[in-house]
């Protein structure tokens, strides 16, 4: 691995953490409302997987998707402005935290109904095959979503038609307050892949390099036409399910033990140190570089907040325009102004 690439991944891990903390702060200060699902603890999943993605790959995600969007290249200011419900948000202020979309960057949406990412992903993949392209779709979902019918239906179709999808399970062990052993007869989600004749693997979702390595290998195979694969990444969320969740269902000791081995701790332990595990050569980042990166993300995040605060609220006419965006010049009944 190149040192620059490592630096980029570490930068994104830090950006992810800082962005989410700052969003949580703005929410607590009443800057915007709604459901806010934050990602601290799970950063290595999005960063590791999406650093293995090509710009031509598509991403489909859930309501906990700010970091997926950021790492896919959606500008932080546009993401923050969407959380604020502003006009310059990546969804024009219509979607909010749970519904980030950026067509240009192939960020195909955050979906808030659990289990929706599967069918959308296989639909995109179907189109890729029809057009004979070597692109992949990355479909994120929580372990709780694996019990929705769409998971089974979509994985079957994906395997049946050899669709280019990497299904990425972010197994953070909880479906709001329900621990995985209380919701899943087979809690190791990757093992379900065999039911569809599909390769399934799991990896340590707290280790960004391990995630990156396995995702890169799987994505290469998928783009080469080998069919879909299922990747389960074991991780943990440090905060409540959303800002509304006090988290009484798990012990403080449990949370603290995961925090001690979180993705940023792992970076400090493994990477700000002499030897790269993959190449054997030293690519380590020194403390000065780490500090530079921290300063850099601090600036990026503050600029994102300033951008969001400066952006105007959308008008009602913007909402109608969003609804009618695709009508262009079609005459529906007779040529008349739209809304009576």
């Amino acid at each position, binding site marked *: 691995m190149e040192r620059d690439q490592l630096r980029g991944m570490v930068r994104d891990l830090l950006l992810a953490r800082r962005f989410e903390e700052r969003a949580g702060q703005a929410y607590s200060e009443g800057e915007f409302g709604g459901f806010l699902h934050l990602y601290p603890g799970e950063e290595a999943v999005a960063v590791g997987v999406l650093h293995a993605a090509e710009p031509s790959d598509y991403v489909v995600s859930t309501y906990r998707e700010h970091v997926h969007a950021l790492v896919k290249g959606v500008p932080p200011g546009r993401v923050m402005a969407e959380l604020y419900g502003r006009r310059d948000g990546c969804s024009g202020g219509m979607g909010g935290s749970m*519904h980030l979309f950026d067509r240009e960057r192939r960020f195909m949406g955050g979906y808030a109904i659990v289990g929706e990412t599967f069918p959308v992903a296989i639909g995109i993949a179907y189109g890729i095959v029809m057009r004979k392209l070597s692109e992949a779709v990355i479909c994120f979902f929580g372990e709780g979503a694996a019990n929705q019918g769409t998971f089974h239906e979509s994985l079957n179709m994906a395997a049946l038609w050899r669709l280019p999808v990497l299904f990425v399970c972010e197994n953070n062990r909880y479906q709001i307050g329900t621990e995985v052993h209380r919701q899943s007869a087979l809690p190791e989600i990757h093992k379900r892949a065999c039911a569809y004749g599909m390769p399934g693997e799991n990896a340590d979702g707290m280790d960004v390099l391990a995630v990156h390595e396995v995702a890169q290998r799987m994505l290469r195979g998928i783009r080469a036409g080998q069919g879909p694969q299922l990747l389960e990444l074991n991780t943990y969320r440090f905060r409540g399910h959303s800002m509304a969740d006090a988290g009484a269902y798990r012990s403080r000791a449990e949370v603290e033990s995961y925090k001690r081995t979180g993705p940023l701790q792992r970076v400090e332990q493994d990477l700000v140190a002499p030897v790269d595990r993959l190449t054997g050569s030293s690519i380590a980042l020194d403390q000065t570089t780490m500090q530079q990166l921290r300063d850099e993300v601090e600036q990026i995040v503050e600029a994102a907040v300033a951008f969001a605060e400066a952006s105007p609220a959308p008008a009602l006419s913007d909402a109608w325009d969003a609804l009618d965006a695709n009508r262009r010049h079609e005459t529906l009944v007779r040529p008349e102004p739209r809304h009576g």
Partner: protein
Amino acid sequence: MAEKLAYWQALNYALDAEMAGDDSVFVLGEDVGLYGGAYRVTEGLYAKYGEWRVRDTPISENSFTGLGVGAAMIGLRPVVEIMTTNFSLLALDAIINMAAKIPFMSGGQFGMPLVVRMPGGVAKSLAAQHSQRLEHTLMNVPGLRIAVPATPQDAYWQLRQAIASDDCIVLLEHELLYGEKGEVDLQAASPPMHQAVVRRTGRDLTIVAYSRMANLAQEAADVLAGEGLDAEVIDLRSLQPIDWDLCEKSLRKTRHLLIVEEDCRFAGAGAEIAATLTERCFDVLAAAPLRLGGLGLPTPFNAALEAVSIPQVDDIVEAARQLSRSPRGT
């Protein structure tokens, strides 16, 4: 004898009372057990009744609602909680194709003592996929009965009645009502489950509303009273069946009908109410019925746009003024 309870607590008391009285009553849904329910409605019940009667489910709406259907077919009394109405779209096969049809298709051999509870409506910046109302769809399904409690007292009464009923009952709760407090008399005799109620009497116009909008209509009526407009407010309490007689009686007095619904106005509950009441009262109506409803937009995330997408108290007041000024008025 009455005590002050929040809407969620009233529902909790109703569940507790029915579960204590009948072993065949059980509750299931996402996070209803250990967590106590997303809106606290099942708080404490898991500890009291155990996991077979308060079942935390996986995220599998169609199948756990269908489980409720199967259990009801052999005489259990399941109360399915769908965390929000939005997710019930995934359970419509169980609700519409199964629960609503099995008693009929079997020639009446099977009852369907199933209750499906779901909170819905526009809350606070929950965006397009989490702000929906589904009454328009459910009202159009023969075989379902639909209760829409607006007060803690009705929540208590109607949930108990729903559990005791041998038909499939859908209870549409409103996310913004859970914290609202009101007097609940646990001993008082309840009115029939589907009877509407006059929340305020008046002689100039009739405002027909349900769920949260019934409360806003009352606030609007207070404002209107200050302007000399005397509005009668009817809270329907039920959308299937609808208490037409009570509405007709009111209309024959006031001759003016304003309907308020949170759901999109186009093809919403208000369309049915306007059509049927016009058929029944055309001879006395002094003006065409006026329907106030949500805009035909998915709910925007932005809080200010969200607020303008559904009726507010001021909108109801303005609509009432407009109705009273209409050409054939007085």
